[in-house]
């Protein structure tokens, strides 16, 4: 009986000690927010050839001219983007930003630029819009996104120039690129707009192409 009583007392002790912690006062802080960004990569350098791209030393895949590596999440902050040929650069991947890094052509032996553009904040709903960027160092261009009365235009877009997002109706368009101030059409490409799109003008003189990307 005595041992039974002592067991009972010890059980009561244990229960009471457990109950002492009844208010939930956590020993650790809340799970900190991850603070992420989302980026994709575009190969815009015709002279570079195929390379492997890494972020902070972690391979993201092979990249060939005019192709992309799709959106991926990265810890926001200053991330080192490197190519398998040894070229590298830090890119500011701002918190909650969805963006694109374009690997631009090397010009005159200067260090290659990894050019960052922004689409939107991660949590913003994309609109129906089009923007065009000129990544061809060979030309300044006039750009038109043509669809009858819905045509939008932008003149004298210099190298690395950006039309900014232009709100358009969802429908089929043709993107037409002319040498700035002339009627010389350098490239054109159809584009079906359903949400947010980015069109990139790539290539060297005489070999321009238009790369259309969905930003959705």
């Amino acid at each position, binding site marked *: *009986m*005595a041992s*039974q*009583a*002592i067991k*009972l*007392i010890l059980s*009561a*002790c244990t229960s*009471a*000690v457990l*109950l*002492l*912690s*009844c*208010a*939930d*006062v*956590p*020993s*650790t*802080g*809340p*799970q*900190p*927010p991850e*603070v992420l960004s989302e980026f994709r990569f575009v190969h815009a350098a015709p002279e570079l050839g195929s390379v492997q791209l890494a972020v902070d030393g972690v391979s993201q895949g092979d990249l060939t001219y005019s192709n992309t590596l799709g959106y991926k999440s990265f*810890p*926001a*902050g*200053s991330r080192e983007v490197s190519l398998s040929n040894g070229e590298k650069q830090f890119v500011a991947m701002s*918190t*909650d930003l969805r963006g694109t890094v374009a690997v631009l052509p090397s010009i005159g032996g200067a260090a290659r630029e990894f050019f960052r553009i922004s689409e939107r904040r991660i*949590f913003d709903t994309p609109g129906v819009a089009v923007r065009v960027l000129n990544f061809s160092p060979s030309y300044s261009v006039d750009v038109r996104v043509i669809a009858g009365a819905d045509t939008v235009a932008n003149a004298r877009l210099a190298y690395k120039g950006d039309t900014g997002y232009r709100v358009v109706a969802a429908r089929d368009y043709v993107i037409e690129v002319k040498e700035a101030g002339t009627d010389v059409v350098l490239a054109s490409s159809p584009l079906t707009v359903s949400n947010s799109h980015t069109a990139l003008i790539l290539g060297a003189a005489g070999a321009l192409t238009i790369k259309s990307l969905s930003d959705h």
Partner: protein
Amino acid sequence: MKKRKNLIYLLAALLLPMLAMASTTGKIKGKVVDRETNEPLPGANVVIMGTTYGTATDVTGEFVILNVPVGVYELKASYIGYREVKIENIRVNSGLTTEFDFKLPSEALEVNAVTIVAERPLVNQNATNVTRIQSYDDFKNIPVRTVNSVVALQPGVVVQNGALFVRGGRNDEVGYYLEGANTRDQNNGNNAITVIPEALEEFQLQAGGYTAEFGGANAGILRQTLKSGGNDYRFSFQTETDNFADRGETFLGTHSYGYTDYTATVSGPLLTKRLKFFLAGQNIFERDRATRFWKGFEFNHSDTYVDENHFPLILTTNREARIEALIQRQGLKMSDNAIPAASRNQWIGNGTLVFDAKPLIFRLGGSLSWRRQDDLASAGTVVGSLVSRMFNVDRTQVEDLSTGLLNFKVTHLLGSKSFYEVNLNYFDRREVRYDPIFKHNFWAYWDSTSNAQEGVQFYDYAGLAPWRGGAQVMDIYGFDFIAPGTPANYTKNKRNYVGGSFAFNTQHEQHELKFGGSYERWTARNFSLDTQWSRTQLQAARQNPDDYRDALAGDPRAVGAFRTLAGASQRSTYGYDTFGNEIDVEGPEGSRHPYYLSFYAQDKFEARDLVINAGLRVDVMDNDDFVFADPTNPPWDRTNQSLFLDQLVKKEAAVEVSPRLGLAFPITERTVFHMQYGKFVQAPQFGSLYNGSSWFDALFTGGTSFRFNVVGLGLNPEKTTQYEVGFSQQFSDAAAFDLTAYYKNIEDQIQFSRVVVDPTSPASDYNVLVNGDFATTAGVELSLSLRRTKRVAGQINYTFSRSLGTGSAANTAVAGIEQVTQVPTIISPLDFNRPQRGSASIDYRFAKGDGGPILQQLGLNLLMNFSSGHPYTRSEGEFGQQDASIGGQITDPRSRRPLEAVNASLTPWNFDLNLRLDKTVSLGRLGLNFYMYVQNLTNRQNVVNVYRRTGNAYDDGFLSNPDLSGPIIAANGGEQFVALYRAINLNGNGENFALGESDVFGLQLLGPPRQIRFGARVEF
């Protein structure tokens, strides 16, 4: 068996150095003699019925039963050739001696069995200091509910603004014990454990002169002992409520506050008669715990100004239209005596489990409580008032608090004259305050995406106001209201100790010798994040994500950067990193582990006409705090704006010796004279000792507040020397009085000081707490008791006191310091000195079978409290940097000028009358008790505080002084400002009073209004 004994001795020897606590038992002594001849009867048996306690008389016929748990007993004496005699209703009090003599009739005499019903002695013959003892039965009929309310009625006690003061000591100088274990919250000195009144066997208030066994408290000891289970199963259930009217409405001319109280107890044997349990549980819910006089108001939108209650609610500043629309849609509306978002729900459990395996006795006792309440000071410091929350009540800060105490005691009886006991105890208090939507996830508090997902839309139009704790405010005619959607602050803290004690007690002839000691090792942590910083922190993480990750990984540089961002928000954070994770590192950043070790020895000599209680106590107090090797040249790194933490010096533990001497002279059985002398010491509270490294970093740059969160660097214990003389006289069979006079000299109390640094030091001058204040208090306490005679019992308590000192609280001197004058050393009346105070109660009760079927077991109790006012200083001052709504108050002590000597004025006298009516119906073993009680029966508006400018509770001297108020009124909307000012400040019990005058939230100008509660109790 021998092995077991050795083990016990070894255990005792090991525990001896970590030593003990206050006893929760008493003793019974007396003599057994022949009724005819008065010859002593050696070898007579004396037993406590229903227990295993008992002894035999010695050659002189005398007996002593030690270590008797507190309670009411039946005592039986028997001897061969004699008829046995029983004495019923003997009450044993903790630490005291209960004395009864037996006169046994010879068997040769033809007498019936002798049973004597003992009456509780009106005069305690062997107490060497005045000890106020109340059992549950003593106070269950008076019109108060909580144990604290009963304590407040005792002589020498003052309750002011919710804080308890004993004999002129500061409110952190009272020691609290439950089941012999310390229950004081070492952070602020308050009692951390709530005892259910129905679970209380008795409490003892020793306002001074306690024996060497007790320490760590300079102004008084409150000892509480829980009930134990008996041989029979008992059960009780009680409920009471005032919930008879909707919010803002009245019933019998009285407001309801949505109060409900359910209490149940169960006790009895468990498995065997040697194992007994007692359990009590209570749930109290209060819809409006801010019980106060409050005159409601209603300002509705109208296109034109109609009168002072109807005017266009257009913002005075150019804010967003949607805010203006919101206010115009809702208006400003509050009901009479109804404060929104002020609820509290609490659960309390008390219990004991006793296993009597003589010579070993095991006792487990403890208390657990949990409560959740709306925090009345929610979201911001300056705009935390009750009215200012009305547009944001959904995000009123929530507070969860749990406390627990567990005490396990083993008593080993070594024969009939000696025993020792070992106590092991664990105390835990933990608290968290948080936003009701995102709770502990403070990262989401200001995250617009997270808020949007919860349907919360920020009214983030004006940015944060750092001087208002970061709250977003809407300015309506100069009055600030917290904007809808503003999240709460986040704070959490934990304090616990592991302790133990040992006490050896032996009776040797007339000497009761006792020695022992105690040990407590505390762990304390504190974390705070105000609403401004939770937003800044999120922004900082987003804008500097790599630094943020480095900080999360523990990089000291990055952590330091975040700490700096936190600013004043985290000055008092220690034991947690800046992200709320517990850390245990050396230095001010880590958790603190103070310990308190004590040893004592005492001898109580009890002769028929002389009792001597002499003892010596040694306290070792290690505060686990830091000092600067040279305070005038602190190790400050100006380049990095931080302290060289490695140059902080650990403060040495303090060792104090406290002699105690008490004498009692039982001149006759009805007359006792006593005198007492003692020295007492106590360690400073954590709140005066600990801040985190952020505070140190800011200390030398003027970045800390000049008066908030200031702590000491190497504080020493506070000391008190007390003298007490008393006289008790039973002047009839039913009435007695005691008169006690005391004088106390208090030294080394904590006060503000400014350290002027060496001219070559890179640091700036800084404010710290130091030992310096001193006080002398003296008083006379009178207590008159009338034991029930026929149907009437009564009690009158009265105290006359005079408490003078250099400071009523640590920050009293801050104005002098900030005005660069000398720290005042003028002796002035202390804020909490109420020169005259008392209570009178009368209980008229029909016993069972008395007064016929209607009146039998019907009782009426009237309790009147009276008190002179407390001191304050009439003052004047400029408007300064106050908010317009603060108006006539002089918020900033730096711009306050006294018009008279410090504390030369007194607030008005207070009176209240309380009533309780109850009726018991007995149905066999079942007892049904119905009752109602009324507090503040006359609904008197007692003025408990006044405005310094006027000495009045209804006029702060602002509107009536055009020179002072004219420009403020003109700049804030004219008549509209005046109307709001009257409604919120003057008619509304001074809503902004607490924020301005005292820096203590919760101060009110008027005492509580009338409350009526109805209840029923069933027991068997």
